């Protein structure tokens, strides 16, 4: 089992952000995407999630291309982006329940998730009453509530206090120990051992994009 990308190129707006990028993640490994602001970490992560499409290159699992079977890919991933997907009127429990039930989570995994992210006691609190860090924790709780092979995390530590930061680190360690894969875009050092780094800076291209040479 492995997840890899070959010769990926990404275009945002009219600009070529990176090109010729390859990567591979194996069970138990943690891949950290680094690079300056604007180097394309978020873009790459969204490509991996299947939200955006690369203008060139392919994403694949050991058993086939993502493009050929996007539903299978979606069953295997969990994505925590900048936005928390927390509904103001629904309670913490109800919020988690929506995503868990769509992705095959159960009541049991939900309660484990709430516990691991320190949200017990807040189950019945409406989303609107949460602080920035509490929302983020709820968003991270999805990782536990619906179990998947591959986690895609975009700056997951934003707004977390030190205790939750450690909780997240433990979560990732546990995930990798059970053979899960993790890809993290972060500017903050997560203090996880044995990570592979992918510096997007190395794939940056200065290009005028497809309109090059026109006019």
């Amino acid at each position, binding site marked *: 089992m492995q997840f890899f990308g070959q010769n990926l190129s990404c275009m945002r707006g009219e600009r070529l952000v990176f090109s010729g990028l390859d990567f591979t993640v194996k069970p138990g490994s943690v891949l950290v995407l680094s690079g300056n602001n604007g180097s394309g970490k978020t873009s790459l992560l*969204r490509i991996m999630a299947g939200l955006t499409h690369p203008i060139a290159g392919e994403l694949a699992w050991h058993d086939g291309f993502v493009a050929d079977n996007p539903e299978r890919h979606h069953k295997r*991933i969990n*994505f925590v982006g900048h936005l928390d997907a927390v509904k103001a009127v629904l309670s913490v429990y109800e919020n988690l329940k929506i995503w868990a039930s769509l992705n095959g989570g159960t009541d049991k995994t939900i309660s484990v998730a709430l516990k691991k992210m320190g949200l017990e006691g807040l189950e019945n609190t409406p989303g609107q009453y949460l602080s920035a860090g509490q929302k983020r924790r709820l968003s991270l709780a999805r990782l536990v509530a619906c179990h998947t092979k591959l986690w895609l995390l975009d700056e997951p530590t934003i707004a977390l206090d030190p205790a939750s930061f450690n909780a997240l680190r433990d979560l990732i360690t546990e995930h990798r120990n059970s053979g899960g894969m993790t890809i993290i875009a972060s500017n903050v050092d997560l203090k996880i051992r044995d990570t592979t780094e992918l510096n997007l800076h190395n794939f940056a291209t200065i290009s005028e994009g497809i309109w090059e040479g026109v006019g």
Partner: protein
Amino acid sequence: MGGCRVKTLILILRSEIRLALHQIGDSAIIVLFFILAAVLFPLGIGPEPKLLPLLAPGVIWIMALLAAMLSFERLFTPDYEDGSLEQFAICPAPLEIIALAKATAHWLVTGLPLIIASPLIAMLYRLPDSGYSVLLTTMALGTPAISLIGTAGAAMILGARRGGVLLSLLVIPLMLPILIFGAAAIDATVSGFPVGQHLMLMGGFLLGSLVITPLATAAALRQSLE
């Protein structure tokens, strides 16, 4: 596979309806708006008792359209802005199902109350008794189509940030047939003409949108996340 999709549909529908129930007052607001807007005409035109029944079909249909238009804006924007849309896009259920669930929920919250309120307005405008059954039938055929088309439009508006503002101009013209046939059918029945053809056209239109719009909506949603 099919069974799994129906399950997803029901799941999302349930969560949408749960959200709507938290906001049950919203349906009441739509009905109030509908009535308030209908009251505008006698105020503006002068309440000539002979004129009002003539206006009834047109007013009811325009107001239903407008009430719906005013509610589409909020259909996907909250999901888009809080990140729920991303999550929908990457959950194993296809976006088409989610689009259909959204349209259904919208119809339950907006279309159904409009149908229920329409006889009231017809009464205010003294629509002849013979018109009521056709009024309800056209509303029942027309409002789901409005919800479906509007859902597609709402999804396109999300992507419009990327430059396609004009797309949203398409929605109103697309709904035009509903308005024209809906109002014409009521007119016809009141004047004693047969309405079968009108109703069939509306039904066909509804079926057509049921097939096409979920695809269009899903495509637009996908596009909005790129």
